[in-house]
């Protein structure tokens, strides 16, 4: 019991609640130009900082290079954020998946960029985290790769229904035999 309690407490401790993460405005689609492909942009203001995050291309395919650009600045002083930023990616297709760290970047003039690839089609959440004046900041950007169509919840549901109904039918069939 003590072990279970300790496990639950540690799990709660480690589990990061997203309820109070910084919520950006709705993503905006950027049309392609001669210099770059189309992209998705989110921007927002939280605490003392303003943030802008863009990914190119807007809907990448699996194994296609994806570029993320992030700009952070203080809108009052116009000073760029010069600290480090941690980038991570999380798949949105299973409820228990862990976040996978991508890179820790130090910016130049408040500009950060990173390039990576996704090996599988799916829905992802690209996250940038950093600290400014001892305050944690976090921004999330939803990312879709390819045309994902996960079936595991349906297979699990159908399997569960068959198992329960089949089990009940089996028990009911044995009952008269026993009696």
């Amino acid at each position, binding site marked *: 019991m003590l072990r279970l309690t300790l496990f639950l407490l540690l799990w709660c*401790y480690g589990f990061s*609640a997203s*309820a109070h*993460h910084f919520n950006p405005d709705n993503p905006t*689609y950027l049309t392609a130009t001669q210099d770059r492909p189309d992209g998705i942009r989110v921007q927002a203001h939280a605490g003392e900082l303003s943030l802008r995050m863009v990914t190119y291309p807007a809907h990448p395919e699996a194994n296609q290079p994806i570029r993320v650009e992030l700009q952070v600045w203080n809108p009052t002083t116009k000073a760029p954020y010069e600290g480090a930023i941690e980038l991570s990616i999380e798949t949105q297709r299973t409820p228990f998946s862990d976040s996978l760290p991508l890179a820790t970047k130090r910016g130049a003039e408040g500009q950060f960029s990173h390039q990576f690839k996704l090996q599988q089609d799916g829905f992802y959440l690209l996250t940038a985290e950093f600290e400014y004046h001892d305050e944690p900041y976090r921004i999330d950007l939803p990312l879709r790769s390819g045309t994902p169509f996960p079936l595991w919840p349906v297979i699990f549901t159908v399997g*569960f229904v068959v198992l329960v*109904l089949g089990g009940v039918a089996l028990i009911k069939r044995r009952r008269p035999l026993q009696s």
Partner: protein
Amino acid sequence: MIHPGIPMTFVWIALGLFFGLLVWSLVREQSKAKQPARKPLLLRNLPLLGAIIKRIDHRRELLLSLKLISVALFLLIIAAGLWGTPLGARNMATTVTWTLWWSLVILTIPLVGTAWCAVCPWDTLAGWLVRFRLWGNKTDTGSLNLTPPRWLRTVWPAAILFIALSWLELGTELITSPLATALLALGMLLLALLFLALFERKTFCRYVCPVGRTIGCYSQLAAIELRPIQQATCSQCETLDCYHGNAQAEPCPTQLTMGRFAQNTYCLSCGACSVGCPKQNVSWHLRPLAKEAAISARPHGDEAWFMLILLSLTSFHGITMITQWDTGLKQIAQLFNTAPDSLWVFSIAMLLGILPPLILYSGTIKVTAIVTKQTTSFRQLFNGLAFSLLPIAFTYHLAHNLGHLIQESINFLPVLADPFGSTALEPENVWNLMDHSISLQTGLIVAGIQTALLVIGLALGLHILRSRFASMDMEQLVSRVPMKLLLTVYSGFNLWLLTQPMTMRM
């Protein structure tokens, strides 16, 4: 996105009315409570509506059609959650479930009572799968028909599930995740199916479903009820078709007998009793608001706790959306030297947020018990007076959800046009939520309605208290003061919550 709270003009008006209601209720205590004997108004006798009610009373087609629509919508929501865009504000699963459906369920309870349970897709789908038929009675179903164990036969499982769901919803931002919403909906379906396959009748609906128990509890305030047309006919009935079922209809899924039926709490509005009654003696009646909570509902310990938890959780929902919440989280995080966004910090904050109403109510009941010089026991008072909390919780819930419904309804049209949000990120479909803020006039109307709801809630709460005190023969004015003060102060707290700028969910 943050929306401003209700303006101070409304606050002063509400505070004035709160004070006026408190004084009036204390002055009114000098006269004895009289319950005018009114003949119940049968809805089937009303023009226009009566024709529909008659059809619902004795035929299943209309209900079946509504169930089919409900199941189709449910499956569409699951599909959108699993395969649609992960953007919560652009996906039907999150928008319809959390903003439209949950708000509408609460908003319509005064008019339709527990009618939502009658078309519940979890129970309908589970029932079709276990019973292998769309309606009517079938003796050989795919269920083991076990009697639920004693520990399960209270509303505590529903209360615990309700707290757990609130923890998930607020702590993990479940309501903005279409996938999590779809998985939750599937999980509830599987739970309903499991209970239906193992236990007799609808054990899940009666004891476990947090949505059903919330609707059931609030329905004690509703203006409609399914009751016998002639009580004498039920008293003389020897077949009890409503309880046992017959060839036309299944037995009452929650084991209620129409002749002794006094409260809506466990009625699922399925109409099995009205269809199955050979004397056609069951129909829908119109009644005064909160009549059941004030007079006919019987006090039970588990239900009293459920009402108290409802009061606590509804306010807690509001607390998590105000700006001071983040400050509170940071202070707790500093105490434990951890990050304010950890679930551990949220869990402590939730515990701290939901405990005060429970302690406050218990303390007030203790004071009342002392003042009455122990003529009425603490337990009797705790169970009996909890009904007065119901309108306070309900009207705040209503006011809070009304705000969400109006302020977040900007997403509905685009979402209904594109349930999966597949074109949400195309250039022609990119919206900026900041440009869609509601107009000042609409904001004032919403604020006015929210204020009026809290005033009505306090008025109903004081009215219920008066009836409940009378039923306990508590004649002393001084013994009634603590609870009346508690209701007034709590309404004031709910009013303060509504004055605060509130972070919208989507």
